[in-house]
């Protein structure tokens, strides 16, 4: 692997790590989750089960 490829790969690996940490921070640490709720659909779903 040449030098340019190595730099690119390392850069991309860093990007993956940063993105993973950001995702972890949002969902696991902050628990920043949007929920979709619908009482009627939920009741229907429970009845089906």
């Amino acid at each position, binding site marked *: *692997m*040449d030098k*340019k*490829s190595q730099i*690119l790969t390392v850069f*991309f690996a860093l*990007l*993956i790590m940063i*993105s*993973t940490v*950001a*995702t*972890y*921070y*949002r*969902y*696991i640490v902050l*628990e920043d*989750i*949007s*929920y*979709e*709720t*619908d*009482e009627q*659909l*939920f009741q229907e*779903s*429970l009845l089906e*089960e």
Partner: protein
Amino acid sequence: MRTVAEYIELCEWDTSRLLVFSDNVFGNLIYYSHLLPLVVSLLLAFFIFSKNSKSLATRWFLMTTILLCVWLYFDLILWATEKPAFTMFFWSIINMIEPMIYAGILFFMYAFIDNKDILFKQKLLVFVLLSPTVILTWTNLNLSYYDLTNCWREAIEGPLPYYSYAVEGIFAAWILGFGFRRFFQTHNKSERNKIALMTSGAVFFLFSFAMGNVVGSLLVNWEIGQYGLFGIPIFVAMLSYLVARYHLFNIKLISSQLLVVAIWLLTLAILFIQDIDTVRNVVVITLILFTALGYLLIKSVKREVEQREHIEKLALDLEKANARLRELDQMKSQFLSFASHQIRSPLTAIKGYTSMALEGDFGEMPEKIKGVIETLDKSAQSLIVIVNEFLDVSRIEQGRMKYEMSDFDVRKLVEETVAELRPNVEQKGLKFTFDADVKHDYRVYADQGKIKQVIGNIVDNAIKYTPSGSIDVKVSRTKSTVNITVSDTGVGIEPDVIPKLFSMFGRAKDASKTNVTGTGLGLYVAKQMIEAHRGQIWIESEGKGKGSTFHIELPAKN
């Protein structure tokens, strides 16, 4: 209006143990479809990597397999977890990893088929295409929200995964296009097979993988996708087999190990399955795996046995051929010896009578006849030299060459030889010098006749191959050796020809133009004789037209 916690409570989800074990996973088939490919693929990739860790192809293969295993494990967590936060996190990461697996296979294909890394520009393009899926992983573009309109523990995907599927499609088409292009560019049959098998293996691998994912996502039926995952270990095994085969690893060993691991895992899995339909599915998959791996194993064993039998037959044939060759060689030497002896006797008679006639033993001859007799005398002499060379070769080959060893002064011997050959040199108009420091002791313990023959041969060659200029003969001394050097300003020798000159019938390409009667045996005989005296003989020449120098080195008698 219910709170999120109330919705979750109403769903009555089981709490997962070690992230992956819970009653939320319906049926053990899910474990089977995830853990089997995970273990088998990882084992195979590490095995191949351990055999050739320096190969770029095996590195990309290992990296891709690790990504695949992470994907499988995270997917299993999604099946088991009851926590929306975990679902959102692992689902997001899965979406990020997925196109990378395609890219990994693409890099692996380039490294395996072209035996070099993908070009930087192509790699940059791949990373640019992948960038949005990485950078936007944590955003709502990836996963829009967690669905609590039912108890299915699902996230609803945004537009980003559809972009990922498009990128995956591009990579799959790239792999296929690359495989096709290389296939048609290559004319070697074995290389073509390799490309065809590797491309179809890679495409089927990605197809199996996509089944568990794209189909599930598009049809919103994740159960269908599970069956695709069973194809993964088959195609990982196929790719491993090909990597191993074309890197000449021990295929039989790989197949055997793979078969044992697969049977072990399958048997273990059956123990945990209680549902008869699932057992049936597992048995079908076991059968497919067993058939594929068993076929490979049987095929490799069969091939090995056939190869061994073939080699044994070849060895036997070779032995017979060798014996026959030895016999023929012996017969040839005997014939050579016999024929040479038979020819030499009449030749000696002819030479004797022509010499006597020329010396006037039979009275005065008319000038016309004298010229004929002189030609006859020279021809007889040339033939005697050739016959003697043949006899020497035959003696050397049969190990019958005898050496009569004694102490003598090499300087005197060379001086005598030079004196004998001086008329020939002067007749050709060449300058002839002899140089030796008389203060030194040049005694050696050797066969005087043979050494004289060798020196005569070397000087005679110098005369033959020097049309004009000079021949210089020198005798010198080192602490342990006596050295004879014969330098000429003759036709010279090309460097690539020099090593061949001391072999039997070894002559320079243009030698026959200068010396028609040479047999190519003189230097071979000279080398054998000098080496029999624990000496050395070699040639130095700067090339055609630049003359040459022959060196003879003999152990000195101290």
